[in-house]
């Protein structure tokens, strides 16, 4: 290899590092945003330094020995192979160190598990591959999904600053309030995790687990699902916006208004074309992840929509499966409103290669619930 080749290989190598370097790498845990995360940060630093200290002592001795006690410098082997006192000492010292570590860790665990005296509660439900948030005291609920465009993931567009860590509807909490999180799942196990909060809790179908946060400062905090949950496990981020109490109340009011106008739409008579147009957006947000954007599905786990016996059969059966689910198909009745369901049915029956020509009104969906 001549000098020029070496240089150009080196330059290519370095340029690889320049790609996407607009987000800074980090070497340590994220800056804590809650008291618990702060305690965890401190515990980690304590243990890290204790480990480094022991490591340096032990391996200084080993490398000293490697340098000095080698045959090539003429060192003759000693023949000792026991020393009871030494063995007792190096068993007892670690015990003392461990007790010193266990004490602060235990205090933090007790604080983490204390979910009493909360100011408000949010029920968080994981499902493949989105999060649903239900504000139990406010009658506010919504679904949160990845908002990074497919073009960025498929390398057809430049990746944004918060690539894969951005959602359409973030969870919003007021700062300074103790928020109890009731975490569960619909289909498989997920895990709700925001590193800055020091909360990672598995979301387990059929069981509700508790955690709590009290966020110190307003800001946007980002995390990801932390338990393998199938194909799009890497694509179900969690974003929490912490707002001041006033901003939070404004947000709650806006959410309620949006919900009211959506339910008003359920009583109006919709034209089929209107439903199909609205249904496309609903399908792409909620259904395409399994049944495919073109309706091809991923058989055998996820059946195709195109030519499906359900989407081309009796419309009542179609409605029933969407409302109540079947096997791994989740129930949507608590997730989508009447308009969304009517729209997606119209879309699935009259697009994606299907053309049954029929549709159902939101009022009929309401009646079937």
């Amino acid at each position, binding site marked *: 290899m001549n000098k020029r080749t070496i240089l150009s290989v080196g330059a290519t190598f370095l340029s*690889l*590092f320049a790609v*996407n370097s*607009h*987000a800074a*790498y*980090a070497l340590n*845990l*994220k800056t804590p945003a809650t008291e618990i*995360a702060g305690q*965890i940060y401190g*515990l*980690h630093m304590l243990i890290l330094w204790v480990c480094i200290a022991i*490591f340096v002592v*032990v391996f200084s*001795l*080993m490398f000293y*020995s*490697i340098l000095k*006690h*080698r*045959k090539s410098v003429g*060192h*003759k*082997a000693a023949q000792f*192979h*026991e*020393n009871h006192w030494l063995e007792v000492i190096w*068993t007892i010292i*670690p015990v003392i160190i*461990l007790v010193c570590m*266990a004490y602060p*860790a235990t205090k*933090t*665990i007790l604080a*983490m598990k204390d979910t009493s005296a909360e100011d408000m509660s949010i029920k968080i439900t994981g499902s493949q591959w989105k999060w649903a948030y239900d504000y139990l005291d406010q009658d506010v609920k919504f679904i949160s999904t990845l908002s990074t465009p497919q073009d960025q*993931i498929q*390398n057809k567009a430049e*990746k944004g600053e918060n*690539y*894969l860590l951005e959602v359409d509807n973030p969870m919003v909490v007021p700062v300074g309030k103790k928020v109890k999180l009731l975490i569960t799942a619909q289909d*498989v*196990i997920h895990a709700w995790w925001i590193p800055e909060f*020091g909360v*990672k809790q*598995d979301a*387990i*179908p*059929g*069981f509700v*687990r508790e955690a709590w946060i009290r966020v110190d400062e307003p800001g946007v905090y980002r995390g*990801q699902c932390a*338990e*393998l949950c199938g*194909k799009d*496990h890497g*694509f179900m981020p969690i974003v929490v916006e912490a707002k001041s109490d006033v901003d939070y109340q404004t947000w709650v009011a806006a959410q309620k208004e949006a919900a009211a106008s959506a339910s008003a739409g359920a009583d109006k008579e919709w034209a089929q074309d209107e439903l199909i147009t609205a249904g496309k957006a609903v399908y792409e947000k909620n259904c395409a992840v399994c049944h495919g954007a073109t309706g091809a599905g991923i058989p*055998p*786990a996820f059946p195709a929509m195109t030519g499906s016996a359900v989407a081309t059969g009796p419309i009542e059966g179609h409605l029933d499966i969407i409302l109540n689910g079947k096997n*791994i198909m989740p129930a949507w009745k608590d997730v989508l409103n009447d308009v969304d369901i009517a729209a997606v049915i119209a879309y699935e029956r009259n697009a994606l290669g299907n053309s049954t020509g029929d549709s159902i009104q939101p009022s009929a969906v309401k009646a079937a619930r």
Partner: protein
Amino acid sequence: MSTTTATHHDDHGHPTGIMRWVASTNHKDIGTLYLWFSFFMFLFAGALALGIRAELFQPGLQFVEPENFNRLTTLHGLIMIFGAIMPAFVGFANWMIPLMIGTSDLAFPRLNNMSFWLMVPAAILLLGSIFVPGGTIAGGWTMYPPLSVQNPSMSVDMSILALHILGVSSIVGSINIITTILNMRAPGMTLMKMPLFVWTWLITAFLLIASMPVLAGALTMLLTDRHFGTSFFDAAGGGDPVLFQHVFWFFGHPEVYIMILPAFGLISTIIPTFARKPLFGYASMVYATAAIALLSFVVWAHHMFTTGMPVAGQLFFMYSTMLISIPTGVKVFNWVATMWRGSMTFETPMLFSIAVVFLFTIGGFSGLVLAILPVDIQLQDTYYVVAHFHYVLFSGAAMSIMGAVYYWLPKWTGHMYNETLGKWHFWLTTIAFNITFFPMHFTGLAGMPRRIPDYALQFAEFNMISSIGAFALGISQLLFLYVVIKCIKGGPKAAANPWEGAEGLEWTVPSPAPFHTFETPPTVK
């Protein structure tokens, strides 16, 4: 330890050609089969890992679709654990335990043949699952339900059956090894005179017998949940998905020690040889091994800290997990004390052993960090855990296997391996390993979850470094293959004891070890 030399006589009357291997009841031939099987599985599962690292070289999806990415991580884990590391240690047990305790073969030679040949249908099922409709198993090597119940592909069932068969093979093999060690030692070799490798395998065999049936139970429940309408792990039918995790990790944690205790045995054999000094604290090594084995049954739920246990459970499992660092620490101190004031030389086996002591300790310390429950909450299911278990499983188990291969190659083949190439293999492996896995501590701390095919931009630099290291690590292992084949084909003749400081009965028989050895047991004084 002094011995009287046994009489040896020439090879006789065993089948030749392919039937020599298919019908073999000879511990050396079966040991060879195990070692080659594990080496090919090691290369195959390593190639799968390179698929993972290629996809993770840059953010965005380039080579592997998300579902296929999950298949790569799942198969990589399953094959490395059950196809590479475990069979390699059984290979060493087959070859070396009879030679080390001065007996002619294992107690049940035909069962031994069955133990190996059961692995072949298991491998066919596991690898064949790649080609069935729906593709191979994708729910992680831990196969947590409901995800593993949700996947309708028969590949999941094939993998379950493969693990059942491997479990039978392990149990049969363990019974064989325990019976051999307890009943067939040469006269004079008391338990506390056994080489430490034999001790660690004796304890490992008990761990296998105790834990493999538990895995079989978990897998059987999974199978009936999938096909026969039971609801062990389905909350809708009154079951509990977390129950699977409890049962699985009750197997899974002893399994971790099944993969590291024999490695401790190998290291404890090699270091005294090249330090020319007896192993420091032999008795405490034995007790530490037994302590680790016992503790391994009461720490399983530290894999499940984020499932949300009651506080008493969390505290218990944190304390018990922290305790394991004490016997493990004793081992590391003993190895360093063995080197202390020795007369060391640094042939390839010794280089690997020193690297194992050094790097395994890093994995041990990151294990202690993970034992601290609040910290584990942050690090569970991140790349920090990936870094941790590769420091214990690659630089603990796999590198001790490599060192031990170099150590006994002269005994197996009758030739010395090429020391220069061996050292090249060592340095390339060690450096590439650290380039691959050390940055994962940082990505994990910074918040990168494991088992994701694509990642946020702040993880890009370290992932690129890891991927470059991984390819260097993978390619370096081809050099290992070359050195081993070259040594089998020829090289300087090896003496019966090619190492100046080696002790033990295996060095009293000629190199290569004759087909039959110790038909008359030696006497150990």
